[in-house]
């Protein structure tokens, strides 16, 4: 058996992932469904409030399915839809997948009726989030970039690919933006429109694009190809991650960040490297966490496990990075790895469903792609000094940090 048959829910599906991605963008989204397909998004995956979004679901019946949905897309059917958006998004479900609905035809029809650009995605509920997010970042590129050069003199820095599935609660993006505040810098986001004091469109004149997830790379590559904006993948974990983030911007933009005391280098601390740590989660995130737990605390006994099949991912990891991660969904392999670890860093759902971890030290790290909104609001951190303090406290509790007078 595999772990998804017996222990865990399937990962967040393709169309639910796109609901989350377009949640806070200027997008009108229509899910082609008999009506119930939005339940995973409404009940499980989205932790924010839908009230102000422009997300809709059809209520397809037998006639729509037999005759063809295309024939029912009329001006009347669309009359109550909020048009105040930059573009429309049409999503398929398992039903449209099975009956072979031509989403391109439907999107062209909507485009004609609404006089707005329409993007469509052949989502189906059979696949998980990673590939479709990457496709979506690439497809929405024309609508989330500024069409003209900027008229102010600030240096532009693009922030691309932050999404709650990989990066967690939105508060972490706000923290990153707060850390990057600089009088000479203008931060430009990939269409997210609910964040104050930043530009919500990407700049073609940016000195650098910072990419915060693997899925965002497709968009950064597009900007690099067309406007020669270079990009760097970075997740500013703990304090060393924030240092690295500052260093990248300083190198590309020729500015200097005033580093506060709390972000200065720390002296080495003594840790118990006999304890075996297992981190389970999203590959990009856990690779970075392993790196910064080593750089910050000197912890070397860390193994990584992803409960996906490699082919589900778009990740363009190097061979060296891939070799660090055990990709498996096999029940025996997963439980063996859990048994071998002294300390497990993973989503709280892992603790909930695997009895093998009951006697292990457990450090909570929600992965919304697995557990949705269930644990999105728990008290944890991974960025800057608060992230450092969270892990320091947890590692001390687990006995990995055995002496910390110097910090």
């Amino acid at each position, binding site marked *: *058996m595999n772990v*998804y*048959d*017996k222990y*865990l*829910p*399937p*990962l*967040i*599906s*393709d*169309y*639910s992932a796109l609901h989350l991605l377009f949640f806070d963008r200027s997008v009108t989204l*229509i*899910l082609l469904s*008999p*009506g*119930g*397909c*939005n*339940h*995973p*998004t*409404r*009940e*499980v995956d*989205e932790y924010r*409030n*839908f*009230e102000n979004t422009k*997300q*809709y*679901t*059809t*209520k*397809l019946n*037998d006639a*729509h*399915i037999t005759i063809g*949905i295309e024939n029912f*897309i*009329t001006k009347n*059917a*669309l009359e*109550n*839809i909020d048009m105040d958006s930059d573009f429309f998004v049409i999503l398929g*479900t*398992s*039903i449209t*997948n*099975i*009956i072979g609905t031509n989403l391109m035809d439907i999107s062209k029809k909507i485009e004609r009726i609404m006089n707005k650009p329409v993007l469509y995605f052949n989502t*189906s*509920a*059979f*696949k998980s989030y990673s590939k479709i997010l990457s496709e979506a970042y690439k497809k929405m590129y024309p609508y989330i970039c500024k069409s003209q050069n900027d008229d102010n003199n600030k240096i532009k820095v693009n922030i691309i690919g932050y999404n709650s599935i990989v990066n967690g609660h939105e508060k972490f993006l706000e923290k990153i933006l707060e850390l990057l505040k600089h009088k000479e810098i203008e931060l430009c986001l990939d269409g997210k429109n609910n964040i104050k004091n930043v530009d919500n469109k990407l700049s073609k004149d940016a000195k650098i694009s910072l990419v915060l997830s693997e899925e965002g790379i497709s968009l950064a590559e597009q900007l690099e190809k067309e406007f020669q904006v270079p990009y760097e993948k970075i997740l500013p974990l703990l304090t060393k991650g924030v240092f690295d983030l500052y260093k990248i911007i300083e190198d590309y933009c020729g500015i200097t960040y005033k580093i506060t005391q709390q972000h200065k280098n720390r002296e080495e601390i003594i840790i118990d490297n006999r304890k075996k740590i297992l981190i389970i989660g999203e590959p990009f995130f856990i690779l970075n966490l392993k790196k910064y737990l080593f750089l910050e605390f000197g912890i070397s006994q860390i193994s990584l496990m992803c409960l996906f099949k490699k082919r589900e991912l778009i990740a363009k990891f190097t061979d060296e990075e891939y070799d660090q991660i055990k990709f498996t969904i096999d029940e025996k392999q997963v439980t063996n790895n859990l048994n071998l670890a002294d300390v497990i860093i993973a989503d709280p759902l892992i603790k*909930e*469903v695997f009895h093998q971890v009951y006697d292990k030290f457990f450090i909570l790290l929600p992965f919304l792609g697995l557990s*949705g909104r*269930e644990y999105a609001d728990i008290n944890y951190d991974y960025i800057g000094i608060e992230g450092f303090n969270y892990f320091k406290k947890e590692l001390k509790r687990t006995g990995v940090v055995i002496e910390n007078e110097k910090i």
Partner: protein
Amino acid sequence: MIIEKTVKKNSFDELIALALSKPNIYVIAIGPPGCIRVLFFRAMRANLLNKFFAYAINELDVISGDYQKKVSDYIIKIKEDKPEMKGLIIYTSCSEIITGMNFDKVIYDIYKRCRLKVKIFNRGPLAKRKELPRKKIKEILKEFDECL
């Protein structure tokens, strides 16, 4: 065609809680992964995860329309793991309804192999209902009475 605004909802866990309310009666949800995900969390929120199983079908299963054997084998494995299980409700999804998936063979095969009684509950908006889902679940549970 009706198009409705999508709004946030709390969990609809009453139905799965009802289906799992009888001792030794278990539930297995069958359907595309994206459809059965929500049922896992409903069962979890009702503290009934130990009696809930899921079988995710893939696109190839739908095309071939022939996954009864795989479902049967999977249920037999569950029965081996949970010998106390006396009855099982198969929650189907729209995919099974639209492809006309016939579970009679599964019900027969399971009963023949391990004497486990299996009932079908067609869920989702495409299920043709003459009665409310809650009433249907109650009827199914009543039918299990004789094997408890």
